[in-house]
């Protein structure tokens, strides 16, 4: 994605009331956020409009491959660990992983194994969608409720 294109986008949004813009292309994804202040405060902002610096947009510019989507992303379905244990991405050492980032998965498909007290628990997807992010490394311990996968539904 062209950097100038991103800057141009920011310039265009700067003076608008747009709070958040998300753009996904084949190259990746950008999210631009602009702090408009709490709703009540906005009135006083209007009153003090001459102070330009105050309305300067606080933006986050992200131009990166799909992997590094920020944690706060709400549009994704999150698969959390249902138990305490060790996270495994493959059925056995040396075997190919159940899923990779970018893979399409369907409901009931095995995403990972969580081993707890020597019981191998296969965690299945409860939705159809695309794996956009795997948050835990193979062989790492996981806590109850820990986020494991982001799936774009």
């Amino acid at each position, binding site marked *: 994605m062209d950097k100038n294109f991103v800057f141009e986008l920011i310039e265009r949004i700067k003076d608008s009331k747009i709070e958040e813009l998300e753009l996904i292309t084949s190259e990746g994804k950008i999210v631009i956020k602009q702090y408009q202040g709490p709703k009540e405060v906005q009135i006083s902002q209007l009153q003090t409009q001459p102070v330009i610096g105050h309305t300067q947009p606080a933006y986050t510019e992200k131009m990166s491959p799909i992997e590094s989507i920020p944690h706060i992303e709400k549009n994704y379905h999150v698969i959390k660990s*249902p*138990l305490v244990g060790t996270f495994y991405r493959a059925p056995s*050492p040396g075997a190919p992983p159940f899923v990779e980032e970018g893979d399409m998965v369907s409901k*009931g498909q095995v995403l990972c194994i969580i081993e707890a*007290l*020597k*019981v*191998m628990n296969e*965690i*299945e997807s409860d939705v159809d969608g695309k794996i956009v992010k795997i948050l835990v490394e193979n062989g790492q311990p996981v806590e109850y409720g820990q986020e494991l996968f982001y799936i774009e539904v």
Partner: protein
Amino acid sequence: MIDSVEFVKLLKERKYSGEELAKIFGVSRSAVWKRINKLKEEGYDIDVSKEGYHIISSPDKLILEEVKPLLKTKFIGYNYIYFDKIDSTNEYLKSDDFPDGTVVVAETQTAGKGRKGRKWISPYGKGLYFSILLKSRLEVYYVSKLSLVFLWSVFETLKKYTASCDLKIKWPNDIYLNNKKLAGFLIDTSIENNEVVKVVVGVGININNDVEDFNDLDIATSLKIECNKTFDRKKLLADILYQVEESYYKFLDTKFFNVKNVEKNLLWLGETVKIVENGTVILEGIIEGLNDDGSLILKVKDKIELIYVGELSVRV
């Protein structure tokens, strides 16, 4: 169609003529004759005379005809699948959709699995290598308890056969006889929406293995080696399935399992052990007991630690 279980049962009782058998099963005499030959191939010793057929001895195989008459279970083993040889009984049950309570048994496994890709050696016809499929929906919370229920059921059954021997449970899920490994479990579950929808319990027990079947006699053993006699694998299997079903029903009903049952039989209880993870000792302490969630209570110096990962060792 000849009901093979019934056919074998009759021929064990007394001599039946081909004509009688044809009449009983509503088939032709040549169908009877074919069936007799098939049984001979399976290893049955059948006396054939002018008066008819009679089974003199049966093969030491865990075939349906031999195990079914011994089963006292209501649903476990109702669907019974036998293999002379298979890669892994657990993998077979996971590969397709089978009815609740399906049991898969094999005389040998070519890729018998232990944990972390380790192999479980299954010499032909000497041990019990089987898997049970259970499909009751259960909250994930109960998984560790459920695995203790299976472990304890097998332990209790084996205990009846090894009264004079030192049978223990090695945390978290092995059975030891005279300080050597006798049986192991591989439990696979499927979890969907925080609910266990499927459990496959794989059990491997060294029964009539001989000394030459083991690479290292210091770590593993069989019932035969320790007790100096040959055991009836068919009866043992039927007894285990019965005990598993009883305990499983009770657990589903009450959602309760007393971990003290396992705790009091723990190997190295009150002794100093090492916790080994991926080949490194991560902790050393005294086994104090078993926690309600299945974790091991270890006293490390003056502190109590709950152990969820790793393996126990007294050597290293």
